[in-house]
């Protein structure tokens, strides 16, 4: 079982890497350089903060683009072109297939975040008084958040078209960052129905603000180990749930050659 999953993950990783996905890392490098060269002179005394802010946001957005646009078409492309038929005609379970594809894309994501993280650390190292190892905590939580989004993309791509899967996943990302505000808004209304609806949204959609420590890191606020471990459990729990649901749908899916 693990052999099948690792073989599938490695082939997915090689496919995405060779599909020039890493050109996006160049975009990140450009973003970092431009934030240093163009934006920093405009913000007297806060150059370092701008660079860190733009860098961390850039990493998250580029990671999100990769996960959504590569992930949403990943399973569907293999379904449409029939690649999946030769794989599932081998002794490979459908759930193994999904997990392998998920891990392959996550490996690509991890590699990209690692390269972008190194560029980021190097740039902040060059800027006086900016460098901090706490940035690694922000990288880690960004990776966890995107892992969860990756699982959401896999979940949606087993049942809807790539475009809808991308739209729904983007919706989860956006609402996930607003779910606390939605719940607070519902409570402020005092109306029973609105409050219940806000609560439903809060519990149905993962709260992605748990993973957002970018503001705290920029301002030098502490990110505790307790927060990191809770976020890890929360993120992996949602990821597992989404993958289980995806597996359940996919195991009943008709694969027409």
């Amino acid at each position: 079982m693990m052999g099948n999953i690792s073989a599938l993950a490695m082939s997915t990783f090689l496919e995405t890497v060779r599909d020039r996905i890493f050109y996006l890392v160049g975009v990140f490098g450009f973003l970092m350089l431009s934030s240093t060269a163009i934006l920093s002179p405009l913000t007297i005394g806060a150059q370092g903060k701008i660079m860190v802010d733009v860098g961390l946001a850039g990493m998250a957005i580029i990671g999100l683009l990769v996960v959504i646009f590569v992930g949403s078409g990943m399973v569907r492309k293999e379904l449409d072109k029939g690649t999946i038929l030769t794989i599932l005609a081998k002794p490979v379970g459908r759930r193994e297939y999904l997990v392998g594809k998920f891990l392959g894309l996550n490996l690509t994501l991890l590699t990209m975040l690692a390269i972008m993280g190194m560029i980021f650390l190097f740039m902040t190292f060059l800027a006086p008084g900016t460098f901090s190892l706490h940035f690694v905590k922000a990288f880690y939580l960004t990776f966890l958040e995107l892992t969860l989004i990756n699982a959401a993309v896999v979940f949606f791509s087993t049942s809807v078209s790539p475009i809808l899967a991308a739209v729904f996943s983007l919706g989860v990302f956006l609402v996930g960052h607003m779910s606390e505000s939605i719940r607070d808004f519902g409570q402020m209304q005092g109306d029973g129905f609105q409050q219940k609806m806000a609560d439903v949204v809060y519990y149905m959609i993962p709260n992605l603000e748990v993973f957002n420590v970018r503001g705290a890191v920029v301002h030098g606020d502490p990110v505790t180990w307790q927060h990191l471990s809770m976020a890890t459990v929360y993120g992996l729990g949602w990821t597992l749930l989404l993958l289980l649901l995806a597996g359940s749908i996919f195991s009943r899916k008709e694969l027409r050659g």
Partner: protein
Amino acid sequence: MHLGYGTRVAWFPLNHRNNSTISRFQAFKSRGWVLSFQKVVTNEPGPAGPDFALSPVPTTGLKQTAEVCLGSSPPCLETVDALRVLDLSKSFRSGFLRKPIRGIDGVSFSVPRGRVFALLGHNGAGKTTTINCILDLVHPDRGQVNILGMPHGDCAVRSRVGYLPERPYFFEHLTGRELLNFYAKLLGVQDGDRNRRIGELSAKLGFESYLGRRLKKYSKGMLQRIGIAQALLGDPELLILDEPMSGLDPMGRREIRELLLEMKEQGKTIILSSHIVPDIEQMADTVAILREGRMVMIRDLADLGAGASFEITLDGNERMVAEDVEVLSETLVRSRHENRTVNRIQTRSTGLEDLYLSVHYRKEAVR
């Protein structure tokens, strides 16, 4: 021939293997059963040693199986066919109203080990749906499939099956070697054997020098070869090939044909689908003709050519083929009802193409 779940076997004590036994087998044969007077290799205790085996033509279904087994003693054992398909049906839903469209309906057949079995039918006849149902890539609405004595949903049996889909498409950014390595890992081929097997197959299929190239640079014929290679990687007992000659030039077709015949000589069972009659004639032992999702005929190719068919020329120079007297009679009656004039009836030897065409022209299924 191995014993187990699958083909029905009639069991006759040695001292009963006389003329009356033979005549009973002949009677079965005349009712559409293919009989083989082989010794059955078995560890099962029998009352009197070696026995006769018979391989039924599966379209006869369970009722006739039970009939055949009546009176045999002990009642019956079952041998492992490479593939046994019983009453397989599948419909798909399509369009806004999700109207059901028939894919296949009541398809039944079995394939003894070591045989080449061909599914023949034009596009949309249900060949690929049948294969997809066999491999559990599509879940049938109804029916049973046993592969090498195991239910088709059992993941473990797939390591003993090689499959080539129609128009195979692979990861285009991987090299040929990487792709075959990937499939070999999925099949559980040991590290040491992997390179040797890939080398052997690529040499045999003529793409050894392309192994280091990415698949997006492969021609259609080359992709077909690598598709066949991935099907053969695990040294499968059963090969299922959906249009294996598709996209190949004449030289490539001959190479693949020779390879498949070599596989047959090694005792592999091959199921292949095609709409190209000469390919089937050159490779298959048995052919099943599908039309509009139904299996309308199963014939041993060895039996073809023994009889005669009739070419009927109607008014307007329309030609039809009737493969036996019964069909000829049916056609003549229909022509009379439709006020058509029969200009000429010519006898001709029956080939697969004639049989196929006659099935195509007939309105009612013949089983």
